[in-house]
């Protein structure tokens, strides 16, 4: 345990140092992740106004709360590991990781956390600014917030496991952009980014409940907004736990097979 804290700290520090060199680029890359919720917030607000005040159970102020919290949740749970692996394997950089007596996922998790810490400087002021621009309907309860943090933490690990597994597909195909794109597209709909899940057609809602996307993003958001019943919250945590376990098992399997493939002579 002590070894892992020390190693994580070293990974975290070096990642932070490295990323600091790219702070301008990082700020630029965040534009898209900030703009997307604003775009859909605007679209749904316009729709609500056209309909005389609300869409489903969402008023413009509800949409504002939804999309501001969504922006934060998405920021704290997302990873870029699928792109990293493509590069790592094609450039042979993975060899460096394989030579080290520690599983490479630890360096990746630490790097991701370092990134989140660094970009907090941008995302929190942005959220505050949006708060004043869009006047969201968001009440703060300490209990809700505590449960929200738990859901957010689980969402982060779960999403990281799943995306790490998908990233390993790069072992088998050198062009996994197509898979990334499909995953991204599904996520756009099923994690509640294009619209809150309960505004989607029933069939898509069913799909969203079965797949991990909703539990990684929309669930913590709805929880924070106080839109979920106790039963729904319990159900959400169960789904998170299940997908976390599934992701963990999948990593064991794909990593073992992937390395075997990578290290086959000539690959």
């Amino acid at each position, binding site marked *: 345990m002590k*070894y892992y804290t*020390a*190693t994580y*700290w*070293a*990974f975290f*520090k*070096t990642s932070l*140092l*490295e990323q600091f*060199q*790219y702070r301008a680029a990082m700020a630029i890359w965040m534009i898209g992740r900030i703009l997307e919720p604003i775009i859909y917030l605007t679209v749904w607000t316009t729709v609500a106004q056209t309909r005389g005040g609300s869409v489903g159970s969402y008023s413009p102020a509800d949409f504002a709360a939804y999309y501001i919290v969504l922006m934060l949740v998405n920021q704290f749970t997302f990873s870029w590991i699928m792109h990293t692996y493509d590069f790592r394997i094609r450039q*042979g*950089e993975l*060899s*460096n990781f*394989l*030579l*080290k*007596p*520690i599983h490479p996922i630890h360096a990746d998790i630490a790097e991701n956390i370092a990134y989140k810490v660094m970009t907090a400087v941008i995302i929190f002021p942005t959220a505050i600014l949006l708060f004043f621009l869009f006047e969201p309907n968001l009440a703060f309860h300490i209990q809700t917030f505590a449960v929200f943090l738990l859901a957010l933490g689980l969402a982060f690990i779960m999403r990281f496991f799943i995306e790490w597994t998908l990233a390993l597909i790069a072992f088998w195909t050198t062009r996994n952009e197509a898979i990334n794109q499909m995953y991204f597209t599904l996520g756009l709909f099923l994690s509640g980014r294009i619209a809150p899940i309960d505004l989607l057609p029933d069939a898509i809602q069913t799909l969203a409940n079965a797949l991990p996307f909703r539990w990684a993003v929309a669930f913590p958001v709805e929880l924070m907004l106080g839109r979920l019943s106790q039963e729904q919250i319990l159900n959400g945590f169960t789904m998170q736990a299940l997908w976390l376990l599934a992701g963990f098992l999948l990593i064991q399997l794909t990593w073992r097979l992937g*390395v*075997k493939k990578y*290290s*086959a*002579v*000539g*690959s």
Partner: protein
Amino acid sequence: MGHPILPPSTPHSQKLTSPQTHITFRPCPTPPTSPSYEVPQREPGLGAAIKSLVSRTTRDVEAVKNITFDVAPGEIVGFLGPNGAGKTTTLKMLSGLLHPTAGEISVIGHTPYARHKDFLNRITLVMGQRNQLMWDIPVADSFERNRAIYRISHGEYNKTLDELNALLDLSDLLSKPVRNLSLGERMKCEIAAALLHRPQVLFLDEPTIGLDVTMQRRIRAFLGEYNRRHSATVLLTSHYMADVEALCKRVIIIHHGELLFDGDLNTLIERFSPHKTIVVDLEVERADLSAYGDVVTAEGNSVTLRVPKTKTADVTGKLLANLPVIDLTVEDPPIEEVIEQVFSN
């Protein structure tokens, strides 16, 4: 939690296949099962390009066919061969990055491909054309990262760093980001980073590539010193014969994935060089010695002759008997020439 080099008497050494063997490399007991892989082939031109959209031809390539060898602890072995001979493939197999389709590879008692933590803690791989240091941050911070990964205690780390510092003169470099270092400085840091955990076995793939002569000499001297101090086993590939001459008593030459020679550097020269070079200084200038052998150079009163090895004694005797010789030396030809000779056979 340092991981110092384990002397041969520690429990780990009991895992060795034999006390005299650090490395056993037998990836291919019989030729048919030798490792091979497919590479796509494509002809130039627009037509061929379009055709390749639909169908693709491949051919099998064998990486290493008939290479087997053992290495004893503390040995420095040079790997020679032209590009594509299979040197890097062999080193990757030994360090556990590639696994052979058949046969046995053993390094310090481990099967490399299992990538056991104990194994990884005791080896290192340095690739001259690839870096492990993080590009944008100071070298020292990358070192810290490795310190954590390899569980090196502060005391051990500082000791190792001092030693590396003294040998490689790193002190000015540690605070700089890697991108601001010259190629030679970077290589020094790469090597230091790879040795922080005091590995017992070093795999070095072209560690001096692209460096200027002074820096090459520097790295070479360092590797020799490291090997002496810690009796580490070193496997080294290089294009520069000077590296091999300076460091390796034993060389392994491979070509097209096949072992051409494995043995003493001197034996190699002995066996593959049919010629010796005789340099004579005479009391007279511009003597015509073409009757004794091929005249390579003739400047002033010094003449360089090349003679068949079997006739060396004979020619030397005649020269001494017939001419006013001041000085006479018999030399082996440059090693590059010998290697060329090996490949041409």
